[in-house]
């Protein structure tokens, strides 16, 4: 029994740097690249819809319909295994970045579109009435406010992406999940290996969540000192009364 225990500990300790290395080398770059391209494409898809550009708007709807309506795994397979029959070859990593970017763009464009539409129409009207044009109203008034609304769901999407990169193992990309599979097969300790891998994913997402909280704090519009102090006091008060969503009136 204790032999088994030490064996598992040894496997876990030995495999940990291997997993972490693959995470840094593949999983994180894959996530960052995919999210970056996915975000740019999403912004374009959202803007052509909001601006109601004929043709492009319909294309964007069609695009979202296709990429939200089919499995991510299938999109990966089509790009990696399917396209070669038309003479288009990508290596696994590139294919994964393409598939993830295209897929993310569909979801993120919906987040951005709804965020833009959540900015009250009166904000644009006020912009036009002081003489701004459409471009100025969008870049100076609407998009900065939409960014703030879109930020939390976009971050959720990023966290989701981090874990979805494990699907790339199915198209020969040696990312963290593939390494875990191999080690698990060699030592025949799948339970502990996958637990360990899960732990690393969890750590990354914990870090991202922390990052999100910090960013959100910075997204607050800059405030004069006296207001900041007052807000801090309110926040402290809120912390003191934990279950704030309860009806505050009355006694228990």
């Amino acid at each position, binding site marked *: 029994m204790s032999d088994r225990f030490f064996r598992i500990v040894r496997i876990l300790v030995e495999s940990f740097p291997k997993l972490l290395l693959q995470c840094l080398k593949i999983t994180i770059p894959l996530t960052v690249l995919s999210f970056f391209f996915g975000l740019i494409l999403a912004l374009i898809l959202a803007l052509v819809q909001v601006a109601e550009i004929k043709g492009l708007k319909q294309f964007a709807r069609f695009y979202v319909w296709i990429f939200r309506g089919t499995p991510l795994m299938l999109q990966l397979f089509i790009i990696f295994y399917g396209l070669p029959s038309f003479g288009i070859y990508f290596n696994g990593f590139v294919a994964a970045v393409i598939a993830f970017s295209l897929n993310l763009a569909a979801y993120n464009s919906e987040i951005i579109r709804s965020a833009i539409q959540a900015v*009250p129409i009166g904000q644009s009207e006020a*912009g036009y009435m*002081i003489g*701004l044009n459409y471009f100025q109203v969008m870049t*100076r008034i609407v998009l900065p406010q939409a960014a703030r609304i879109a930020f939390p769901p976009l971050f959720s999407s990023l966290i989701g992406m981090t874990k979805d990169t494990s699907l790339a193992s199915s198209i020969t990309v040696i990312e963290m999940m593939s390494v875990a599979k191999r080690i698990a097969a060699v030592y025949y300790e799948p339970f502990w290996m996958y637990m360990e891998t899960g732990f690393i994913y969890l750590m990354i997402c914990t870090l991202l969540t922390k990052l999100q909280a910090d960013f959100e704090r910075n997204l607050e*519009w800059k*405030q004069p000192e006296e207001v900041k102090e007052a807000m801090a006091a309110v926040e402290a008060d809120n912390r003191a009364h934990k279950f704030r969503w309860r009806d505050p009136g009355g006694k228990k």
Partner: protein
Amino acid sequence: MLAVKNIHKSFGSNQVLKGIDFEVNEGEVIAVIGSSGSGKTTLLRCMAFLEQADDGIFTFDDLSKDIRTISRKEIKEIRMKMGFVFQNFNLFRNKTALQNVMEGLTVARKMSADKAEAISREMLQKVGMSDRANYYPDQLSGGQQQRVAIARALATSPEVILFDEPTSALDPELTGEVLEVMIKLAREGTTMVVVTHEMEFARNVADRVIFMENGVVVEEGPAKEILSNPKEEATRRFLRRILREEEKEQ
């Protein structure tokens, strides 16, 4: 200076404006009154092209155009000479009070930041909001926000300012500070068109009152005359009702 002729506007099958003629002279303060749904806000929004009217002639200074053929460029030029104050303020939420006032100067009119800031601070001073220049709209009360909004409309020195029920969204105790600013502007000779429910303001400040009902102008004339001695039965009915409500509030 500003005139509209035969303005028609429908939302679907609901005809909101049924041929409105309306003229504003320089230095004049006009109060547009009437019950909810009479079309007065729509009229004001059509004059600022925030709604596209279905038919009518629009005249501003030496420009006179069929409202259906007016170009985007012409609309922008008109808006450059026009101020608009909204019922719910519509201050830019991502900008401070000062930045709100400056925006039209620096961005739309390409004024240098220094000059724009000087003008903007002066305008904030005028509406009594100097000490809140660096506050964001969320940190201001409704009355304060509306005063900043008025400063924003004033900053670009428009030829006319349109007010769309500027005190309707405010708590009763906050309407006073906004009306005070508006009275001050009127005294300085600002040309104003004010859609309002404040009969006191109409009576004491407006040069001319326009009473609307069901999408038409029922009666118009000097404020004192219309409010104390209306000719039309509809106007009398409306004034009686308003008076009763005001008494109830007190």
